[in-house]
């Protein structure tokens, strides 16, 4: 055996360029255009030069008039710069049909029963083939970059006077790309266009190196989103409008980790747990000076404590949760200054809003009612005091690690099965099949910890990475209940969502007609569709799997909230 091992090229930032076809001539041309012409190349590091960003983090899009660029409600990792032509931003929400989505509706009980009778004996049968062409508002065309959906008639869909036109040199989609929030409006090409799509990593570097661009984006974020984000935080609800305004001016926003965490998740999860924890970006380290209150704006973070030679997970924090409050309150009440008691690390990616300590002490602390304050506990608190503070039901440490390590904490409707109660009768699978034309939409298998199994069923994630890159908008959040659903009619079977899902909960299936004959395209290739659990959103009773379990074994659980999980696992 070779003790030295195989030598390979060290993995680099740009091993996978966004668009391999972008040439040096393209980069040269781009550098002659605004805003890159005004950028100082020397402001960029040698490791991440401007040319490198343009060559590896960008792609050029040739668009025709009417092409949909982004849809309202979509998730995405990119910002867009208009190089030529103009784009139209719709100021009104467009109908679901235009966006490739399906109208959410509930079946009546007669319809529900009738559906049972109409269930096909054949696997994945449909009443239709691919009908994109038949949708009246939109059409589809193929180009080198895949399928592009376009509006047949822009004025018919976006009324006159209800849109804004964007011109060359303008940037859009940047806030959504940086904060991992849904796109706030639909944008279509208003003419033949040349567009530069800049992926998140490259855009972040441009911001870091170009103060003017950064200031522009920060101003936009402060004006449009930050105030509403701050108001959403439970702790800040005691503040007046003026306080929030002042707070917004001084809040710092930071991003940690990688938006594309799902890409590397499977390979990283094979690493040793200690190694994994150490590779997670540190937001606040145990023992560090408390320089502010940290608000989780998006994503997840792990709270850990040094334990022996490793780090033990204590809790996980999600959107809207805060860290550092206990320390800040203790420090304000005593001369003895506490550092951060635990480490906060980014799981995947995290957006943080940091309220600096002096700002917190000036604007927030005086407004919080005494009963809402966390109990002050010094570092030297005796064991009795510690026990008193941690009384109540808490999650088993092993289960906590299991949920965090497998990123199940992303799921708002994870399928949790208590194997101590599950009789393996498969009533849940049969019920699922009966409500989905005889095709079960989950597999009663999955990773297990102790007596708990998280089955392979769509978890309707907080960070739905499956929704990024769907060319037709078929996979989307239902506007009424927030569930992630797929419009079967507009799904073109590209498999992007299935490949992106880190939990392998989206299946690509070959479809057939009502007689079981497979649908094929002109070349004899089968037509495939993406399928997954829709939580029986059409049925009034909620998820059939949960309702069909006679032994209280299967539950759809919000795994992103530790208290919900604990209430389930501590049932007696």
């Amino acid at each position, binding site marked *: 055996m070779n003790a030295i091992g195989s030598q390979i090229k060290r993995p680099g930032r740009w091993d996978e360029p966004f668009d391999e076809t972008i040439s040096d001539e393209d980069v040269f041309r781009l550098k002659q255009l605004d805003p890159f012409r005004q950028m100082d190349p020397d402001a960029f590091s040698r490791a991440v030069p401007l040319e490198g960003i343009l060559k590896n983090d960008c792609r050029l899009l040739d668009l025709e008039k009417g092409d949909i660029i982004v849809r309202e409600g979509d998730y995405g990792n990119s910002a867009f710069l208009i190089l030529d032509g103009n784009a139209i931003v719709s100021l009104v929400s467009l109908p679901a049909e235009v966006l490739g989505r399906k109208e959410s509706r509930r*079946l009546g*009980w007669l319809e*529900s*029963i009738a*559906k*049972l009778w109409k269930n096909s004996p054949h696997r994945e049968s449909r009443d239709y083939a691919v009908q994109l062409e038949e949708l009246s508002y939109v059409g589809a065309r193929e180009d080198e970059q895949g399928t592009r959906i376009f509006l047949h008639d822009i004025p018919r869909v976006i009324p006159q006077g209800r849109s804004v036109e964007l011109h060359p040199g303008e940037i859009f989609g940047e806030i959504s790309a940086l904060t991992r929030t849904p796109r706030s409006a639909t944008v279509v090409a208003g003419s033949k266009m040349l567009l530069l799509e800049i992926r998140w990593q490259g855009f972040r570097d441009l911001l870091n190196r170009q103060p003017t661009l950064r200031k522009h984006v920060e101003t936009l974020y402060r004006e449009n989103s930050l105030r509403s984000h701050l108001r959403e935080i439970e702790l800040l609800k005691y503040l007046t409008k003026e306080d929030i305004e002042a707070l917004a001016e001084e809040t710092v926003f930071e991003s940690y980790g990688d938006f594309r965490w799902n890409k590397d998740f499977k390979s990283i999860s094979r690493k040793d747990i200690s190694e994994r924890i150490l590779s997670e970006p540190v937001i606040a380290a145990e023992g560090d000076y408390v320089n502010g209150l940290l608000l989780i704006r998006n994503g997840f973070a792990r709270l850990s404590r040094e334990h022996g030679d490793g780090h033990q997970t204590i809790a996980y924090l999600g959107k809207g949760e805060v860290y550092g409050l206990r320390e800040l309150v203790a420090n304000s009440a005593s001369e003895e200054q506490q550092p951060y008691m635990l480490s906060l690390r980014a799981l995947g990616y995290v957006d943080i809003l940091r309220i600096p300590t002096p700002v917190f002490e000036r604007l927030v602390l005086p407004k919080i009612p005494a009963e809402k304050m966390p109990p002050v506990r010094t570092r030297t608190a005796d064991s009795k005091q510690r026990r008193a503070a941690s009384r109540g039901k808490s999650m088993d440490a092993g289960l906590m690690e299991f949920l965090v390590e497998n990123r199940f904490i992303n799921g*708002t*409707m994870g399928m949790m099965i208590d*194997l*101590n*109660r*599950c*009789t*393996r*009768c498969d*009533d849940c699978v*049969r*019920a699922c099949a*009966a*409500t989905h034309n005889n095709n079960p939409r989950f597999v*009663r*298998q999955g990773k*297990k910890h*102790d*007596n708990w*199994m998280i089955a392979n069923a769509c978890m*309707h994630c907080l960070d739905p990475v499956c929704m990024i890159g769907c060319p037709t908008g078929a996979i989307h959040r239902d506007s009424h*209940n*927030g*569930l992630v659903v797929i419009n079967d009619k507009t799904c073109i079977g590209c498999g992007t969502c299935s490949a992106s899902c880190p939990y392998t909960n989206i299946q690509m299936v070959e479809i057939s007609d009502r007689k079981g004959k497979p649908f094929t395209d002109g070349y004899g290739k089968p037509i495939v569709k993406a399928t997954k659990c829709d*939580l*029986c959103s059409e*049925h*009034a*009773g*909620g*998820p*059939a799997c*949960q*309702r*069909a*379990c*006679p*032994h*209280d*074994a299967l*539950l*759809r*659980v*919000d795994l992103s909230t530790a208290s*919900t999980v604990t*209430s*389930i696992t501590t*049932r*007696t």
Partner: protein
Amino acid sequence: MKPPRTSPNFTFSRRRLKYAMIAIISVAVIGLLVWLQNRNLRHSTFFTGYLLMGSILFLTAFNLRKKIPVLPAFGSATMWMQLHIYVGLSTFAVFGFHIAWRIPNGMFEGLLAFLYLAVALSGVYGLYATRIMPRRLAALKEEVIYERIPALQRQLATSAKRLVLEACESTDVLARFYVNKLATFFERPRSLAYMINPSGRRRKQLLDEITDLNRYLGEQQRPVGAQLSEMVQQKDDLDYHRVVQGRLKLWLFVHIGMTYSLLIISIIHGIMAHAFAGGLR
């Protein structure tokens, strides 16, 4: 979105107590009504008979509920299961009232009583099995779907054979051991005794023997021995899954199968009872 069914105040023990109290009170009320009817020199058997028939029809309807999973008005399967358990247990008392706590002497009544007891006792066994066996399965390392077990067993047998064949180039110790001990374990179904009372005896025996074998193996073959040990454990787990999951399915098959026989005989019994009592009252 619907929140999880479990509310913060929910506990299984509280639910058990609630349903048990309702069942006990119901049985007491039925007993009182039977006593009052008998005291007034009226036949309580029609009252208890109809009650029993109604209960059995209700208990059978649980299966129908499973076939229609979409209607919220039908209630959740958990609620049905709880009602099924407590109504089912209560029928023991109603059955006792109906036969006036005597052993039926006619052949038809005897058959009917036997069928009722078989269904009811299989239900009690089911209650026990569904509470105990899942825990045993959960304690195993892997979770497997029953229908996939034969394929997994075949796969494991092939892998074990290939592993031994690859290792036997340098020594025949493992090959001999495989042929004499492991081949039947991997390739043949387990004995009837194991099916009746699955135990880890064979597993322990084989693992001990593989450990003993180590001293005859060279450096290169020892990891193969360790892999074989792992495979023995996997095969034993699969066998255990097959037996226990099979049992969980078999009792239900017997319970439901006999229920239909009970229903048919009960209907005939009802018609005959009315016929011999001078028609419908």
